């Protein structure tokens, strides 16, 4: 199976729960499980090739211009992590099916889980660091959703936010680091970067890149001092914790360090930063875990500690240490996932995770006891379990260090000692001891589905421990080979003879057991001792940030719109003037056109109307008339300067806009009061004049100069007929050359109309509905709402205007016209009916809902565009031909016409929906609806519908 498909499968799986959840949670879980299994099998099929040393790649060009390509690779390291992610993911899906309660929304859970799984698989299969970054951010986001899954719990929300903040910020640093790395290496492909070790390490940018990348890896893998988010992420449901903190999320940082190990490791900086951070984290995590009461918190800090261990091993920079690191990744994933699931089972069955309230579960939950004990002993590093083997390897590496050997040996032993202590605590204080009678629920073993997963893992723990070379040797060889870039032939054995590592191990076990026996007094001392609480510090910092942000926002916007707009206008003016005075506009080359009488008259009208607008805008109806005048002159302006299409559009939009504003004004106050003092108005006028001078000046400067660069319009003119089959170049641009833009624009128009509809919907409910029902109009109503003359005239006009609309639509491709204008004309024709004959009468004859028109329009345009695919052409490529029908002139049929039909429908629907919404508000406000065309009731009956 192609690596790209393996990475894609979980995302496909993420769609399934939403579709299938109505069939029940088992079906949804099975669907997710099946997709995961298919992906896992696809991965496993590559094993033979990878063991032969091959690297499987898939390359898909995505954005080659910025070297962002969907390149995937499977080598030993990807294989190891892929198996962990998909294999443990499979067990988690099974476990979660039984863990989640009836109240939990299971579909959402599985969707988040599969998204997360996909992101993780993406990280480990990426062969392009930019692609890797995309998946990296995706894990931050999807883990946020998973950790905050129980969003009714404040801890869940806080934990989710904290993990997103920490890992997200680390991710930002990492983006910078990886970009630098890619720049040094000259390529963003991991395969290329891995070969550029010398270039990278000799570059002066090596240290900054290293630090930035490590910040990303450390935040993700919860290394000190970024470790604090991980325990708080435990507020998530246990399946999530088990998945995120054993095999996936926190291992992503380790994966990255392992992936870039051949390039970055081996330097002094690498050793000191990575190895010491790992050591400190290992010790600190183990120490805190020893004193945690919550089972999951104990496991969380133990995870922190083990991640530190692996980080330290990677930091050593030697091949043997890398092998040990890889081996411990496998072992930790197996026993830690089992332990988390055990903790979840205990929580599920007893109702508590507090160790102080547990104990004596050995007889009550025998199966869980066995699973938990074996896993805990493995975590403690007791022979012959797998945890023992990798811990011995770790201690062996520590005792063979060339620098700072004593320090590392001391602290590593100490960490191992605490590790033994908390592991034994899990086993002794939870399962051993006397049975109690005060568990919140009566505990018993869960059903098979819940313990099957951890049991399977525990079997692996034992088998790897006993037969490490058979069980895991091949995987270690392959993955460690991929990390180190050398042929690796490991041989792991249980018995190495008495060496330093064994002695350290024995000290740790003895010390840990002793520590456990003194646990009570020590715990009291620990609780009493003052220590910095990371969450308090974090909260303090975030709260300060929020307060500063709030103060800034408050200072900048005080809720005054004119203030904000003045500032905006002045800033724009300043930016424009700055550009004008620092740049050069080129010489004045265009001669002025002579002024002829007609444009001069238009200019005078526009200026007078604009001036009146400013002086009389308080009389709102008059202002509306003036706006109409300016609009009409603008359309004449378009007509005069060779833009017939624009003139037609402008004039019809003008009609619709004025009607819309008029209908709205019906409800609004009819006059604006003078509220601002004269000095304030003077200042506003000053700003407005400056802006006017600036924009007018800019227009003049532009009009007097020729194009700075040759325009692309000659291409459109040349090819309008050849490629688009139309003579009207503007229309061909709209429906063909720039069809994609137009497609977006009609969609936006449709969305605007739907937003208006939604707004109306909310206005017709609740408080505003009450106000509307009691609405008193501030002006007298007309006596004759539907004058006879108007009714008759519009009735006659309707077919004519529809024909005009059709005519404009059909000629659009070759002559001024087209879908936009035709849509507006038809909308106006319909509007006339509503205005003249009344809403009720018109609505009865209106068969299609306007939403449907908008939808049909977008679909028609889209389907026309898709049609091009079937001819093997790109989206929206058009075809055309000329036809001859008897009695009619030769006419043209182009696929672009289908697109234009979509534009037409969308425009009609949007305009009508907007105006229809206003009429709904009017009816709510007591406007009566007539069923008869005229208000004169010719029958003797009481007029119906007047209620």
């Amino acid at each position, binding site marked *: 199976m192609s690596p790209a498909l393996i990475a894609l499968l979980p995302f496909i799986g993420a769609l399934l729960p939403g579709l299938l959840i109505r069939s029940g949670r088992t079906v949804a879980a099975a669907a997710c499980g099946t997709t995961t299994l298919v992906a896992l099998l696809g991965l496993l099929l590559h094993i033979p090739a990878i063991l032969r040393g091959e690297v499987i790649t898939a390359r898909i060009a995505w954005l080659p211009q910025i070297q962002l390509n969907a390149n995937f690779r499977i080598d030993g390291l990807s294989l190891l992590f892929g198996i962990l992610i998909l294999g443990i993911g499979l067990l988690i899906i099974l476990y979660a099916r039984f863990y989640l309660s009836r109240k939990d929304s299971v579909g959402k859970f599985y969707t988040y889980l599969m998204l997360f799984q996909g992101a993780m698989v993406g990280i480990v299969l990426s062969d392009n660091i930019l692609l890797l970054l995309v998946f990296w951010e995706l894990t931050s986001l999807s883990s946020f959703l998973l950790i905050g899954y129980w969003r009714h719990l404040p801890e869940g929300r806080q934990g989710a936010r904290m993990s997103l903040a920490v890992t997200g910020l680390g991710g930002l640093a990492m983006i910078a680091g990886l970009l630098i790395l890619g720049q040094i290496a000259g390529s963003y492909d991991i395969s290329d970067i891995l070969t550029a070790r010398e270039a990278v390490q000799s570059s002066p940018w090596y240290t900054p890149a290293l630090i930035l990348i490590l910040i990303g890896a450390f935040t993700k893998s919860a290394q000190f001092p970024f470790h604090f988010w991980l325990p708080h992420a435990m507020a998530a449901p246990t399946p999530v914790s088990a998945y995120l903190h054993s095999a996936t999320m926190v291992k992503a940082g380790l994966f990255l360090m392992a992936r870039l190990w051949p390039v970055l490791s081996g330097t002094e900086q690498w050793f000191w930063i990575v190895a010491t951070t790992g050591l400190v984290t290992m010790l600190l995590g183990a120490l805190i875990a020893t004193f945690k009461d919550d089972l999951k918190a104990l496991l969380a800090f133990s995870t922190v500690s083990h991640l530190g261990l692996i980080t330290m091993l990677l930091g050593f920079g030697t091949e043997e240490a890398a092998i040990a690191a890889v081996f411990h990744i496998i072992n930790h994933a197996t026993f830690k996932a089992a332990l988390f699931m055990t903790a979840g089972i205990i929580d599920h069955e007893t109702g508590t995770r507090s160790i102080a309230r547990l104990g004596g579960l050995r007889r009550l939950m025998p199966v869980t006891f066995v699973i938990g004990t074996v896993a805990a002993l493995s975590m403690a590093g007791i022979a012959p379990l797998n945890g023992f083997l990798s811990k011995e390897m770790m201690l062996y590496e520590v005792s063979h260090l060339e620098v700072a050997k004593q320090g590392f040996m001391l602290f590593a032993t100490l960490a191992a000692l605490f590790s033994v202590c908390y592991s034994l605590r899990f086993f002794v204080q939870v399962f051993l001891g006397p049975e109690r009678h005060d568990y919140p629920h009566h505990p018993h073993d869960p059903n098979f589905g819940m313990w099957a997963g951890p049991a399977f893992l525990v079997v692996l723990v034992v088998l790897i421990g006993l037969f490490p070379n058979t069980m895991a040797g091949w995987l270690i060889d392959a993955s460690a080979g991929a990390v180190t870039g050398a042929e690796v032939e490991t041989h792991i054995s249980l018995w190495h003879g008495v060496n330093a590592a064994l002695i350290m191990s024995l000290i740790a076990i003895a010390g840990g057991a002793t520590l456990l026996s003194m646990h009570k007094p020590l715990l009291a001392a620990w609780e009493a001792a003052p220590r910095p609480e990371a969450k308090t510090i974090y909260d303090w910092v975030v709260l300060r940030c929020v307060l500063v942000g709030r103060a800034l926002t408050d200072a900048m916007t005080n809720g005054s*719109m004119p203030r904000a707009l003045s500032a905006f206008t002045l800033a724009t003016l300043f930016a424009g003037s700055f550009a004008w005075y620092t740049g050069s506009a080129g010489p004045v080359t265009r001669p002025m056109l002579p002024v002829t009488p007609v444009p001069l008259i238009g200019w005078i009208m526009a200026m007078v109307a604009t001036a009146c607008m400013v002086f009389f805008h308080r009389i709102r109806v008059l202002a509306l008339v003036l706006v109409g005048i300016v609009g009409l002159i603008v359309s004449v302006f378009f007509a005069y300067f060779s833009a017939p299409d624009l003139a037609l559009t402008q004039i019809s939009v003008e009609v619709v806009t004025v009607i819309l504003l008029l209908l709205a004004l019906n409800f609004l106050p009819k006059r604006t009061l003078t509220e601002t003092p004269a000095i304030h108005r003077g200042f506003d006028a000053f700003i*407005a004049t400056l802006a006017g001078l600036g924009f007018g000046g800019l227009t003049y400067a532009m009009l007097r100069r020729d194009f700075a660069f040759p325009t692309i319009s000659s291409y459109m003119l040349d090819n309008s007929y050849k490629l688009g089959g139309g003579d009207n170049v503007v229309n061909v641009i709209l429906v063909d050359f720039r069809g994609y833009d137009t497609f977006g624009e009609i969609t936006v128009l449709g969305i605007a109309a739907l937003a208006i509809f939604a707004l109306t919907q909310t206005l017709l409910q609740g408080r505003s509905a009450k106000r509307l029902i009691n609405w008193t109009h501030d002006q007298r109503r007309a006596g004759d709402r539907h004058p006879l003359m108007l009714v008759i005239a519009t009735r006659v006009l309707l077919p004519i205007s529809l024909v005009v609309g059709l005519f404009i639509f059909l000629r659009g491709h070759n002559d001024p016209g087209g879908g936009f204008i035709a849509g507006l004309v038809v909308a106006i024709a319909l509007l006339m009916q509503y205005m003249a004959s009344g809403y009720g009468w018109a609505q009865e004859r209106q068969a299609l809902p306007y939403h449907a028109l908008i939808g049909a329009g977008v679909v028609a345009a889209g389907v026309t565009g898709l049609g091009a695919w079937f001819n093997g052409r790109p989206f929206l490529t058009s075809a055309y031909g000329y036809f001859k029908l008897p009695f009619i002139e030769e006419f043209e049929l182009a696929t672009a016409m289908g697109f234009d039909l979509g534009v037409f429908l969308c425009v009609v629907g949007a305009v009508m929906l907007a105006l229809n919404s206003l009429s709904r508000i009017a009816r709510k406000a007591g406007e009566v609806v007539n069923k008869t065309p005229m208000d004169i009731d010719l029958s003797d009956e009481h007029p119906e519908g007047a209620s």
Partner: protein
Amino acid sequence: MEFLVASAVGAITAAGIYLILRLRTFAVVLGMTMLTYAINAFLFATGRLVVNKPPILLGHSNINPADYTDPLPQALVLTAIVISFGMTAVVVMMALGAFIEGGDDHINMPDDDRIMPTLKTLDDQKPEDETA
């Protein structure tokens, strides 16, 4: 002629800016409509002023760009006109909704709306608020 166009664009802009600085919604809507005219005219004018040369092909061969005005700004402005209608419609409905709901067509945020709850911890709000 260029001067006439530029001065008209400037005047309409100035009127528009003055109107959007008013305190009532209707005046602001009118101001935005005026600004729309000015900006559309400006965008159209980026193709420069050409009289009597509409971009409608006269023949299908030997097309000389000098015979036609620039069609590209026209196509851009055509959709801009329609989109600005959509925008005006949405803004008008918002203004109307605010007036019906609040009984007031002031554009500024009322002072008591600006008072924020004091922030003690980061998780003050109840989960009901989030889901509602």
